[in-house]
Each structure stands twice: as structure tokens, then as C-alpha cells.
């Protein structure tokens, strides 16, 4: 299971990659694998305010609908237009071309509540199969 060391992770299986005030957000490889063949991604519009722990979009497989939860609060400054057309990118490259949104973080404290790679690794190891 690929869990890059340079990212932070939420219990809802989103990753966030802070870079100064902004951060890219996506779903983890674990989430992508469990959702299965992703066929539809619904993302917020640029400018939307998102709140840590709240739903900001939806990701759908053939038979399932999963909500996306923001790992941190902030304003959406960019969305990945490519995944709207090629949702399978999220399955193939969840940490790369399959990123979802970029947010301008409004609360520095949000990051400290997230897990690092080791913490997330332990977390998914503790989940039932």
C-alpha cells in the first residue's frame, strides 16, 4: 500500500499536501482501492468554502456513492478538471494526476489534527477487513 511520507492524512482517507498557504487534496490509495472502479467525480466550484470534516464532493463507483470530506478548512482555489473527464485517474494515480482540489487553508491548526504517514498506516491496519 502506497502511503507517501510527505503527506498528511485524515481518518476519512483523504490526503493533503500543504505548500505554503495552499494545499492539494485527494483520496488515498487505500480509499481508491476500496471504492473500486471510479466512474464519476463531483467537485465543488472554485471559490467554494470548505470546512474540515465536512463533505465537499462525491466520488462514485459503478455501484457506490462516497462522499469526500475536507481534511482542512479553506477556500477552493483550483479543481482538477481532468478527473471530471477521466475519473479513472483517481483510481490509477490517487496521489498524482488523480488529485481533486487545491484549497487555500484558513486554519493552520487543522493540519496538526491530521495523521502523518506512519499514523495513517497504523490507522488502516486497525480497520476491519
Amino acid at each position, binding site marked *: 500500500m502506497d502511503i507517501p511520507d510527505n503527506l498528511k492524512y485524515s481518518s476519512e482517507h483523504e490526503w493533503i499536501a500543504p505548500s505554503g498557504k495552499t494545499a492539494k487534496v485527494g483520496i488515498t490509495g487505500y480509499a481508491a482501492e476500496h471504492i*473500486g*472502479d471510479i*466512474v*464519476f467525480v*463531483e467537485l465543488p466550484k472554485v471559490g467554494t468554502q470548505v470546512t474540515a470534516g465536512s463533505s465537499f464532493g*462525491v466520488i*462514485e*463507483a*459503478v*455501484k457506490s*456513492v462516497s462522499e469526500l470530506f475536507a481534511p482542512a478548512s479553506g477556500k477552493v482555489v483550483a479543481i482538477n478538471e481532468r478527473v471530471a473527464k477521466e475519473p479513472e485517474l483517481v483510481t490509477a494515480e490517487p496521489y498524482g494526476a488523480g488529485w481533486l482540489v487545491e484549497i487555500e487553508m484558513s486554519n493552520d491548526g487543522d493540519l496538526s489534527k491530521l495523521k502523518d504517514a506512519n499514523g495513517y498506516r497504523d490507522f488502516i491496519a486497525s480497520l476491519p477487513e
Partner: protein
Amino acid sequence: MIPFAGWDMPVQYRGLVEEHNAVRTAAGLFDLSHMGELFITGPDAAAALDYALVTAPGKLAVGRAHYSMIVDTDGGVLDDLIVYRLGDTRYMVVPNASNAATVSSALKERLAGFDAVLDDASMRTSLVAIQGPRAAEILQPFVDVDLKTIKYYSGTQTTACGVPAILARTGYTGEDGFELFVAWDDAVRVWDTLLEAGASRGLVPAGLGARDTLRLEAGMPLYGNELNRDTTPFEAGLGRLVSFAKPGDFVGRAALEHAKDHPRKALVGLKLTGRGIARIGYPVYLPAATVACGSVTSGTSSPTLGHAIAMSYVPIDKTAIGVEIEVGIRDQRAGAQVVPMPFYKRST
């Protein structure tokens, strides 16, 4: 694994889309042991089933099968099922797992007064289905009959993988395929034998997830989604099953004669033209209407067609091909269009 009608069933083995595509292009193996198997035997078996079901099983030739329904006295659908005529005086009825007990007790009641008995073999009979364009060539070495002689919708007693089996050319995928009814204790042998022999020809085990997307593409209804006690066969677009021509009364005849000309809704196929995937329960609207005129009964992203498809009940005057419909997906409306069913039809 998920609980399904009292059984633990695999939603998928390797991945829904892979399994779905395998059935469309090669073959898939399904464990359908949850389905019911009811044997009706006796001199009056044909007459009893003519009375109990909406079709005319009495007219079936020995060895043939047909799709049928059992309705309540008010015409509401209790279940959809397949009836196999195994002999002059012997039939097998295969109901859905979720309705097996209902059908079993309804049939038992309806058999009263006829010289026929019902044997509910559901809890000792397994069903292994092999479906897909390569099903016949994979199965052929393991059965005692020439599969070319087995017509679509027929069934025969034979030996498969060395064990006694009822072999039928039926299925729920829109592809050619076979169903093997065998004793519980023999099912693992059949499953393992076919899976091993078929692997090199692209056979994969397929779960409930693929079963649902395959049947939906093929425009086949699912009880609990498209069919229920508040729906008549006519509303579900299956009025052709109802045989008013057969002699004598049958359960639901009077109600169905009325229902034939008084449908309250109509089932249609929808192709989503807007963004999103319509799912069961999502509201359906006429364009710009604020009040829903129906709701989605089944919906998915179609692996074969590459776009979202759905079935829905709509007002009876909105069934023409091309009618514009809107589906409420979360806080938005997605455009959709009435299209012919089946959504997918195999080319051969």
C-alpha cells in the same frame, strides 16, 4: 461479502467492472445458490401452475422453460420467476431468494384441490451459472449433452462435472449462458471444475455487483426495485406474460383484466444526458416541474455503454422514446432521455 436475502453473498471477487466485462466478452461464473428451487409434481401439475401463475405453463413442451410471474389476487406482483417443465407431470419453479418463502407458501396454497405436490428444495439445491459468449465451449466437455441441442429457455436433467444436474440455457445477464442446478454438496465440485477449466478462456468468478449491472444493461427487472406488490405486470412492461387466453380462472385474473387498461405508471429506460449517475430512489421530474413524477428504480454507470443508465416509473403518457426527463441528483437536476430497453443487446 454482504448480507443478501438471508445469505452472505460476494458483491465482487476481483472487481465489478472486470467481472462485468468478462461476462460480455468471455464468461463469468456465478454462485446463485440463494435462489429458490420449487418442484411441483403430480398429474395436475400443469393445471395447478396454470391456475397459480399468470403464464400458461401447461402449454410448455417438456424440456422448455419460460419467464413468468406470480401475482396476488389484486394483481400486484409477488415475484417474477422461471418455470421449467422437466416432464409431463413435473415442473421446477425458480423464484428470487428474497421471495422464495412467499412463493413457496403461496404455491402450496394454490395447489390445494389439485393432484400435485410441492417440494421446496431451496435449502438443498445450489445454482451455478456460467454466462457469456464462451460459456458453451467451456461447459461442453463437462456435460453429457450436446449443448447445441439445448435451446434458449430450455432445461434438461443430465450429468455435469460428474454429478447429477438440471442444465438450463437461461440467465440474467443478456448473454448466452447456462445454469446448473445441483445438490448442495456437489456445488463446490462444479464450481472448481469449471473455474479451473475456463480460466484460460477468460472465465472469472462474478459477484452480485456485476450481476446487477449486467441485468440492468439487459433491461431485466429486479424484484424489489422494478417489481413489487404495488406494481402490476402491465405497469412493469411485462403484460405480454399474462395469458388471458388460457382456459379457466387463475389467481389475479379479474384484477389483471382491469389492470390491463388502467396502468397507473409505466416503466421506462433512461439514458442520462447530464452529469451524474442516477441511483435507486432518486426523484424523477418532468422538465422544470417542482414535484417529482416518479423515482429511479435502478441506476448505474453502464460499464458496457460508458454512460449512466437507469430505469424509472413515469406517468403513462411520458413513455415515448426521446421524452426529456430530469433526475434529481443531490441538489442538482441532471438531464435524461427515455430510450428503448434493453440498453444493451448482444450482437449474435
